[in-house]
């Protein structure tokens, strides 16, 4: 079965044609690869392709989004299943805000600069979060209305947790 994959924003199709133990044959768009792939440690794959040795580390962000590190590079990869396809079709990809503000890392809410119903301008800071002795400001990209504030100042938050909903 063929899937779609998004790598650093570019979409390609991917399909496993054959598998024999560690050896798989893969088709990406029109490029065919035969390679030997083993998960050597949790989230770490060793790949031999044309006898070259690649070490690939996966950091799953959720069950279909990965940060993938090779020796000198880092990629954001999304495996697109039916659900993602549906969501993508609804999302206008015009550099707009997501439907909520969140932080990539855990931290503590230092200051919330908006409240429910506020109209904010693109570039306005809405929340300040601190982690590891450093404070970071989170802004909206476009003019928005604050739909709901889900956290309070002083709260400890997880990474990628919705903090403020936007309309």
């Amino acid at each position, binding site marked *: 079965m063929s*899937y779609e*994959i998004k*790598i*650093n924003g570019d979409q*390609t199709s*991917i399909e*496993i044609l054959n*598998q*024999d*133990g*560690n050896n*798989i044959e*893969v088709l*990406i768009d029109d*490029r065919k*690869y035969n*390679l030997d*792939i*083993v*998960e*050597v*440690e*949790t*989230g*770490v*794959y060793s*790949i031999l*392709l044309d006898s070259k040795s*690649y*070490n*690939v*580390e*996966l*950091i*799953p962000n959720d*069950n*279909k989004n*990965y940060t*993938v*590190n*090779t*020796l*000198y*590079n*880092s*990629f954001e*990869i999304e*495996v697109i299943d039916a659900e993602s396809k549906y969501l993508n079709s609804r999302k206008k990809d015009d550099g707009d805000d997501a439907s909520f503000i969140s932080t*990539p*890392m*855990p*931290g*503590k809410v230092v200051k919330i600069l908006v409240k429910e119903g506020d109209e904010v301008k693109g570039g306005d800071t809405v929340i300040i979060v*601190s*982690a*590891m*002795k*450093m404070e*970071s400001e989170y802004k909206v990209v476009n003019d928005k209305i604050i739909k709901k504030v889900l956290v309070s100042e002083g709260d400890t938050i997880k*990474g990628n947790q919705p903090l403020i909903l936007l309309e």
Partner: protein
Amino acid sequence: MIKKILVANRGEIAIRVMRSCREMGIQSVAVFSEADRTSMHVRYADEAYYIGPAPSNESYLVIDNIIDAAKKSAVDAIHPGYGFLSENAEFADCCEKEGILFIGPSAYAMNTMGDKITARRKMQSAGVSVVPGTTDPITDINEAVKTIHEIGLPVMIKASAGGGGKGMRLVTKEEDIVSSVSSAKSEAAASFGNDAVYIEKYINSPHHIEFQILADKHGNCVHLFERECSVQRRHQKVVEETPSPIMTAEVREEMGKQAVAAAKAVNYAGAGTIEFIVDDELNYYFLEMNTRLQVEHPITERVVSVDLVKEQIKIADGEVLQLKQDELRQNGHAIEVRIYAEDPDNNFMPSPGIIKHITEPLGLGVRHDGYVYEGYEIPMFYDPMISKLIVWAPSREEAIERMKRALYAYKITGIKTSIPFLNRIMEVPSFVKGRYNTHIIQDNEKYLKPKKVKSQKLKDVASIAAFVDYLSKLEKQKTSAPVTEQGSNWKECGRKKNLIRL
């Protein structure tokens, strides 16, 4: 005789201190906040005491709690590490009052060196070069112009009541002197209601070079040569090396003598660091003294073959320094990089989280001082430094190659780290040549940005790995029942791993 030491710190430095204790047959006591119960320093120590909630101002910075733990554990001495209470004179005083040795200098030395103006005056009278400039604020415009002529251009004019860059003027040309002074004065008056200014020599191409000193309680003091710390990002050191690539034997000897004089001027006892600002012509000026162990102390340890923590402990114990200046030598070249839990490609955003997997660099000439382990959650409350990688080689060139090799093998997943950024620094031409100053990072942005990936093959390899992982997890979710063997060897491997990890 010191038999038991409390280490009033956490992270890599707590463990580093405990290692030397262990080698000396000294018992070590850890203290820990609520966030640090599973931290390595608690596991490494012989004893451990809880000292309060996660935020450091409720635990590691609370003098009473530390003293309390020290009394309960009946230690002979406290080692403060760096940061936290290490340069807190009140803490040193408290220890003394409680009859506990503080492994560091006296409160007097800390106070004197802790105040910039006092330190500057003390150093001047001890014959240590300071940045030419005024110590007292100037209000008279003619006096300001006269002073500028004495110091020589370029100079920086600073509002004496100021801060944050307001009222600051850089003067590089003779004809701008008068106008700059008067505009600085009026801006200062407007901003702070006070038109007094300081004038200071401006160092165009500054290098940050520091000297390590060791002084005992019997008046003996030696220096252990310099460390070059000019690779900084937002005034935070990122890479340090020794010897400095711009140093000459003559200037080294002069600066070393001044460093010793500086320490003696405050009756210093313990390990300390004299920071200098140095220009391209190797004119050097005292900046400040750090009255504690530095993060970057391991490069000195490697090149001079001295265990600085052991020396600190012996000095605190009243021993006479055995090191003689004329027997100390620099052998080869050492470089340290600091590994932070941060995302260098996303504005150095901190990246706390759980270490999923770690492969530490090993082998010839590599020292690694860290504290994290697989499954450890890096707390969001403290400094994001997770380890220090130190390499040594006979030559600077080889040391750089070794550092690249060590960074190649150093893998941490689960969080983002500064490893890729550090690797890029090792490739910056001015770093490779050893001709750099504190502007190196802002001057070399083009080298320090992540490289665009051109290889389609590499992208495809990354995609395949993610895809295989996705499928194998999908498979696992579907089947709690045994999966058929046929054609799922890599899943086998995954499953075997899970089995062994339960």
